[in-house]
C-alpha cells in the first residue's frame, strides 16, 4: 500500500502508456489506434510532470508576495509538457484527416481490409 501511495502518479503514467501501446498494437480499428496514440501522449506528459514534482511544493508562479522560490516545483517539465501537448494534438489532427480520407477510399476503418500495398 505504501508502494502504491508513493508511486501513484508513476503507476498512472505507465498504466496509460501501456494501455495506449496495447491499443495501437492489438486493435484493428484506425480510430481506436489513434485513441491509443493519444493515451500514449497523455501518459508521457503525466510522467514528465511527476518527475518534476516536489512533495509540498507550490506552483512555480509568484502570484502573491512572500512565496519562497525554494519550495516551487520544477518549471522545466511543465514547459516541456506544454510543447508535448501541442505536438500531440497536431499529430492527432493529421492522423484523423488521413483516417477520414482512407475511409472515403476504402469504405472501412479496419486495417485488415486496408491492404493495398504488399508487405
Amino acid at each position: 500500500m505504501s508502494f502504491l501511495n508513493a508511486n501513484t502518479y508513476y503507476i498512472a503514467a505507465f498504466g496509460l502508456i501501456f494501455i495506449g501501446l496495447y491499443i495501437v498494437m492489438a486493435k484493428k480499428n484506425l480510430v481506436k489506434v489513434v485513441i491509443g496514440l493519444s493515451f500514449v501522449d497523455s501518459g508521457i506528459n503525466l510522467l514528465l510532470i511527476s518527475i518534476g514534482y516536489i512533495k509540498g511544493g507550490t506552483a512555480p508562479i509568484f502570484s502573491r508576495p512572500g512565496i519562497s522560490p525554494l519550495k516551487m516545483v520544477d518549471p522545466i517539465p511543465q514547459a516541456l509538457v506544454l510543447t508535448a501537448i501541442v505536438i500531440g494534438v497536431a499529430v492527432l489532427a493529421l492522423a484523423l484527416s488521413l483516417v477520414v480520407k482512407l475511409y472515403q477510399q476504402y469504405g472501412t476503418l479496419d486495417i485488415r481490409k486496408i491492404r493495398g500495398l504488399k508487405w
Partner: protein
Amino acid sequence: MVNPVLLIAVPLGLAFSLPIFGLISKRLEKYLPVIAMLFNLSLSVYLVPRVLTHPIIVYIGGWAPPFGIDLFVGPVGIFFSVIIALVGLLVSIYAMDYIKEGDTGKYHVLFLLLLTGAQGVVLTGDIFNLFVFYEILCISSYALVGYLRDRDGLESAIKYLVQGSIGTGLVLTGIAFIYGLYGTLNMADIARQINSIKPAANFITLALIITGLGVEAAIFPMNAWLPDAHSSAPSSISAILSGIAIEIGVYAIARVIFTIFGATDILSFVALVGIITLLVGEMSALKQNNIKRMLAYSSTGQIGLIVFAFAIATSYGIEAGLFQILNHSLSKALLFLAAGYMIYRTGSMEISSFEGMGKRMPLTSLGFTIGAFSLIGLPPFAGFASKFLIVKAALTKGGGLYTCLIALALVATVIEGAYFFRVVQVLYFRGSNENVTRQEAPVVALVPFFVLAVLIIAIGIYPGPVMHVLNSATSEFVHRIAYIQGVLR
C-alpha cells in the same frame, strides 16, 4: 559575422509567409523554397572555413548553456547543413515543374518546413530541442507522403504516422528519464554527468532513445514503413526522404551514442544490426519489379552500411560513414529524381516498362546510370571512395567480427550490383531499335541531374576538399570532451 541561427530562422519565416505570397500570386509560391535553400547553401558554404578552425556556439535569446538553448555549429553540423541545403535546393528546382496536382502552395510550405526541421536537428545542442525539430521533420514527412491522396499514399502515410509516433513517444520517454536522472537537457551538460549514474539506468534510457530514433532512420526491425512511404510519395519527396530524412535519423543516433552517452560498449551490437539491415534491404530490393520500391529497399540497405561504418567507431570508420552519407544523399536523390520523370513519361513503375529509355530520355537515363554506378561503388564515382574507406576501416579495426561483417557487406554490394545492372540493361539494351521520339525531361529537371552527376564524379575523382571537412567532423564525434568543454565554457 553572420549568425548561423539564420539557417533556421530565414526558411522558417519564408515558410510562414508563403501562404500570403500565395494569395498575391500563385506563381510566386514555387520560387520561395528555391530562394530559401539558395540562401542556406550560400550561408553554409560561407561558414565552412570559419567552422573548421573553431566551432561557433550560438546562444538563443542570450542565455548561456545549460540554462538556454544553444546551437552547436561544428564541422558535423555544417557538413550536414551543406548537404541539406544542396539537395534541398536541387529538389526544389526539380519540383517547380514536377508538382502540378493538388494544392501546390501547401506542398511547398511542407517541403520547406521539412528541410528546416532537418536543419534544426543537425545544429541544435539541446536534446529536447532536437526532439522538437525531429518532430517537425517527421510530421511534415507524414503529410507529404500522403500528398497525392491516392490509396497507396494514404495507406503508407498512416502506417508511417503510427510507427513514427510510437518512435517519437519512446524518444520523449527517454528524454524524460534523462531529465529525471540529470536535471538538465543540454547535451554537453548531460554528457559531462553521464557516468555519475549506474549503467543499467543509462542503458535503458539509451535503448529507448535509439529505438525511437531508429524508426525514422529505418534500422531493422523498425523499417516496415520505409518501402511503402518512399515508394508512394511523389518522387521529389522520395528523393528528400531517402536523401536527407533517414540520414538525419542516423546523425541523431550517432550524436546520442558518441557525444551524449559515450557508449562504446554497445557498438558491436549496432554493427551487427547494421549488417542485418543491409542484407535484408538488398535482398528485398533484388526481387522488386517496381522501380521505386527497389530504390526504397536499396535505401534501407545503404542505411545499414552507414550504421555499420559508424559502429566501427574508429576515426576511419566514422569518416567512411560520413562519406557514405554524402554519397548516398547525392546518388539516391539523383536516382529518385531521374526515376520520377521516367515514371511520369511511361505512366508505370514497372522496371520492364522502361525499355528503350536510353533512346527516349538519354540524359535522364545517363543521370540514373551515374547514380546507380556510384551507389554500387564503381570507380571513378564518389561511391567507390566511400566504400573503399569502409572496407579499409573495417580491416584496420581488425577482429574476427568486423572481418566477417565486412565480407557480408561485400556480398551485399554484389547483390546491389545485380539489381542495378538489371535496370541499366533494361534502359539501354532492351526494346526495339526503331527510331523513338525523344521525350526528354524539362530543363528545370535536367539542371539538378546535371549538378548532382557532376558532383558525384568530381568528388569521386578529387575527394581532397571533402575529406578535409570530414576529418574535422570525425574528430568532433571522436573527441567528446572537446565538445563538452566547447559548450560549457
